């Protein structure tokens, strides 16, 4: 292949056409023309930290079109979180896995409080836009959760999504997790003994709040001060890929008071509030005992890193429920929407859908959930990933639909429409979609 990078003729033409008159900064002239801006700068120190969130210039995500920008951004997701997603839908896990704890001089006090807090509870709601009306009516576009943490290593999560209610309890000391599905009177127990040591340590140390602290450290914009329920709070804004996180923390104690996360250009919004620390939580809330009348299913969670194979499996299912065509974008909410529509059509009598659903029922549902979770994580972890599957038919061997560069790899993994995976050098990649 010809390497135009070395082509002096093209370089020369570009330099002549574009570089003949480079923009020249004339700062003194700019100052004369922008006296108000100069004045604002000069008084900026006195305004520092006391800004009005409503007036700030916020670099929006408009025009951001990379696949990462369209996918649930869950960088450095823990494998344990992957397990939790099975029980709670991806939204919860995003929060649990926003990053690792870190150190900070300014926020050392927070860290100390986190370490000292014996218990913590919070309420979370997730709203998804763009769902079909029947899903909204059924309450399937919203999810409500109550989360409780207790040292050492106990977690309880109560989730309600329409008629579906479930409880997940995790006990790191016993290496067990249990999922209780109320409507089906079903209990699924998970063995966590294979949980990697690093993940175990994080959970045992309850670094859930340390991750909030980390987010605050990473925030690029302060939102100023305001009051929530009479408490003076300071605001911080963090952008991670397409995820915009706003944190309001107590001005004195730095404990979180309210957090919101919007994802997919605002398509999905999660709000966390009612943070309470050191409230009394009965040990019975974290009991791993199976309630009377529940059937029990035992599972072993498979802890493995996301790979292209996971994405291939997800795309295979997704294309199938869409009638053989890949989706326009890769977002968890679209996947959920497409799947729910497919299931509904099956229940309404579409034989082809019923057939596929029957095959699906024979498969290991938990395993498939993990595959899908890992697939989403894989895409979110790779900022250079591109999705080009819009309108492409399943089986199209000529069209590349997704590519990314695995960590520590020179070559890219490219997935084609027939779902084969190939290693491709960067210079041979297809043109990135816009």
């Amino acid at each position, binding site marked *: 292949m010809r390497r135009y990078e070395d082509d002096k*003729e093209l370089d020369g033409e*570009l330099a002549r056409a574009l570089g003949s008159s480079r*923009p020249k900064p004339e700062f003194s002239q700019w100052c004369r023309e922008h006296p108000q801006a*100069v004045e604002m700068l000069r008084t900026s120190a006195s305004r*520092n930290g006391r800004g009005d969130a409503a007036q700030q210039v916020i670099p*929006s995500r408009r025009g951001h079109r990379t696949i990462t920008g369209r996918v649930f951004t869950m960088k450095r997701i823990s494998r344990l979180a992957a397990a939790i997603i099975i029980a709670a839908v991806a939204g919860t896990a995003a929060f649990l896995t926003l990053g690792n704890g870190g150190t900070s001089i300014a926020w050392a006090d927070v860290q100390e409080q986190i370490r000292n807090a014996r218990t913590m509870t919070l309420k979370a709601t997730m709203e998804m836009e763009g769902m079909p009306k029947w899903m909204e009516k059924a309450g399937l576009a919203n999810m409500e959760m109550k989360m409780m943490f207790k040292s050492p290593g106990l977690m309880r999560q109560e989730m309600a999504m329409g008629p579906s209610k479930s409880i997940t309890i995790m006990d790191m000391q016993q290496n067990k997790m249990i999922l209780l599905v109320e409507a089906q009177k079903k209990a699924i127990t998970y063995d966590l003994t294979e949980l990697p040591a690093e993940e175990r340590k994080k959970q045992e140390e309850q670094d859930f709040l340390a991750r909030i602290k980390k987010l605050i450290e990473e925030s690029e914009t302060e939102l100023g001060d305001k009051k929530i329920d009479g408490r003076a709070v300071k605001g*911080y804004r963090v952008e991670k890929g397409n995820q915009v996180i706003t944190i309001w923390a107590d001005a004195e104690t730095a404990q979180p008071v309210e957090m919101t996360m919007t994802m997919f250009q605002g398509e999905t919004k999660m709000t966390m509030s009612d943070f309470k620390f050191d409230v009394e939580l009965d040990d019975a809330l974290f009991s791993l005992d199976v309630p009377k009348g529940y059937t029990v299913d035992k599972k072993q969670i498979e802890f493995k890193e996301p790979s292209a194979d996971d994405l291939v499996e997800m795309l295979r299912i997704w294309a199938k429920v869409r009638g053989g065509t890949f989706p326009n974008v890769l977002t968890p909410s679209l996947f959920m929407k497409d799947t729910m529509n497919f299931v509904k059509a099956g229940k309404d009598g579409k034989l082809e859908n019923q057939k596929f659903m029957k095959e699906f029922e024979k498969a290991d549902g938990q395993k498939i959930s993990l595959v899908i979770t890992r697939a989403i994580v894989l895409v979110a972890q790779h900022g250079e990933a591109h999705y080009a599957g819009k309108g492409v038919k399943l089986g199209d061997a000529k069209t590349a639909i997704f590519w990314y560069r695995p960590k520590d790899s020179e070559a890219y993994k490219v997935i084609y429409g027939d779902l084969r995976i190939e290693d491709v050098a960067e210079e041979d990649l297809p043109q*990135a979609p816009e």
Partner: protein
Amino acid sequence: MNGQTLSQLVRSAREGNLESFGLLYERYYAAMVGVAYSLLGDRHLAEDAAQEAFASACGDIARLKRPEKFAGWLRQICRNVAIDIVRSRARGAAVVKNLSPPTANDADGRPGEAVRRAVMELPPRGREVVLLHYFSGLSYGQIAETIGGSVHSVRGRLFRARRELAAKLSREGTCGSQL
């Protein structure tokens, strides 16, 4: 930069030091014009957008918590300003369309206008790196600092953009057969 690091300059500017802000202006002005140019397709509008972006930055630099992220932060402001210009004037695409035909040459007989047009017809990501490199005169490292990402990814993006440009110009017979 006057012996000061980027972080020192940003911190100083945050404290209201106009001289420090001026050094930042001089360092990033060309880059911001390039960013805006890639969205607006018009040199003069791009300069207006870049200057407006610096003006906006004056009001908000106090809230920039991570000085090392100044370039990316400023780029987002500049993009927003440029997008507002596109919307308010409703001529984003028209700017590109108003350029001369692809075969038009500059007064010296060189295919400058056709090259500029071909650049503006590149996909946005490729267009931005080409303009930042050839128009604003940024190195790969400076581009990476401005748009975020690694030098490696900038090199790859520029490579692909050049490959596409070469193919386009060759098809149009604008440049020599070498292209």
